């Protein structure tokens, strides 16, 4: 299904290699428009790799990722790489938020948000600045527009990064462990912002280690292990009644770690 402001993603028989290392093995996953999909799994299972294949930050060798029915990165399934221009065209509707925020250190919060509005969307500087301020206000940073990233807390930096992605009005948002570089007391403020965004009907794919958050916000949870998609199901099923022994084992370690 394709809606006005949300994309759907169809991943079919996706295979990804780092040289000889088989990082993703025959992944099949449907990400419905307007829904929140959380990716969970042990460290090194391929969650980031899968997420980065969705906007083709990582090239893949087998199968395809289709966004609203259009293969990303390749001319066609198994075909040649698509032109840089067409890839950029597709990326314009995909936002991404990184674990390490990746804000540009030589730009203020407002300039970080305005940059792509000017350079990619071609807005005037004034228009972009206005939009940037609005986006920053939305994530509760209306008073930090002139701050450089190194003057902001981790939680504030991540909220700027979210504002930067959201200001482009993407139809699909990708989050790679948006809170795992944050001090525990800052996690909440970022999760709240993400939860608010989820309620606006944008398609979201979130790699996370916050199981409580995933259980609360996800429409479906995909569990990866060793490059394989073990299961994709509603959170109630994954968390309360996991069908696979590997998921059970993963959740047990997770709970053991979070009890003290």
């Amino acid at each position, binding site marked *: 299904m394709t809606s006005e402001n949300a994309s759907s993603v169809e991943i079919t028989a996706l295979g990804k290699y780092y040289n000889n290392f088989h990082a993703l093995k025959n992944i099949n996953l449907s990400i419905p428009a307007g829904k929140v999909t959380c990716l969970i799994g042990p460290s090194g299972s391929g969650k980031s790799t899968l997420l980065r294949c969705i906007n083709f930050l990582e090239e893949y060798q087998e199968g395809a990722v289709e966004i609203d029915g259009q293969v990303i990165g390749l001319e066609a399934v198994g075909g040649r790489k698509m032109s840089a221009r067409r890839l950029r*065209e597709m990326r314009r509707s995909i936002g991404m938020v990184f674990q390490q925020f*990746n804000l540009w*250190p030589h730009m203020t919060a407002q300039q970080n948000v305005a940059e*792509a509005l000017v350079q990619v969307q071609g807005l005037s500087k004034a228009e972009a600045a206005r939009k940037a301020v609005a986006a920053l206000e939305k994530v509760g940073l209306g008073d930090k527009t002139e701050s450089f990233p*190194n003057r902001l807390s981790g939680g504030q930096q991540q909220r700027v990064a979210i504002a930067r992605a959201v200001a482009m009005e993407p139809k699909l948002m990708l989050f790679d462990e948006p809170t795992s570089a944050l001090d525990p007391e800052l996690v909440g403020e970022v999760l709240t912002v993400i939860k608010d965004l989820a309620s606006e009907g944008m398609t979201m794919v979130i790699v996370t280690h916050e199981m409580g958050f995933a259980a609360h916000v996800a429409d479906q949870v995909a569990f990866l292990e060793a490059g394989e998609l073990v299961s994709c199901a509603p959170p109630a099923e994954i968390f309360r009644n996991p069908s696979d022994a590997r998921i059970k084992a993963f959740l047990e370690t997770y709970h053991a770690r979070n009890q003290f």
Partner: protein
Amino acid sequence: MDIDLFVQYGPMLLRGLLNTVLCWIVGAAGGIALGFVIAVAMYYGPRPLRYVLRGYIEVIRGTPFLIQLFILYYGGPNIGLRLDPVPAGILGLIIYGSPYYAEIFRAGLQAVPRGMIEAGRAMAMSEGKILRRITLPILMVSSVPPLTNFSIILTKETAILSIVTVPELLYQVQTMSAETFAYMEAMFALALFYWGFVEVISWAGRKLEHKTNAFLSKELSA
């Protein structure tokens, strides 16, 4: 010490200082420009070009400036390159400095965090815009301290230009001491001029560094 000597030779010494400063400014600026082009070409260019430039860097860094300058000035006419002392000296400084500057920029390019470039790609920016708007500004900021440092080293290399009769500071001072036998005074004047010169440059470098570091996180400038 004979102060009258400085009054008598003052204009000549000042002209020497002026020439030194001129050669240094044009030489350092040219070296930085050439070094930058080399670094960017090595980073983004095709493999054969990278090998050629690597060879250039190794040869220039591996030989003394004195010899490079000698070859350029006295050997140049053999291949039709007939230069006056000052242009020869400046060109020599540019060539001599370029590989050091290139290495500074190359290291700086490699140190630009990958994530900042990936953020640009994810935001659908073109590679050209990423280079211009993200990579180069970050590179410039992290490069200020090492650029200042090598430019200070280069001030003292300008003394070597005296061997091709550039009337720079050392050349003038040598003339003065040859005419007056006042070696102490001459050396004293020389040291004083260089010291003042270097102080001005490091002050300017610190100012620039301070300005650029205002927004740069510690990890980046380290």
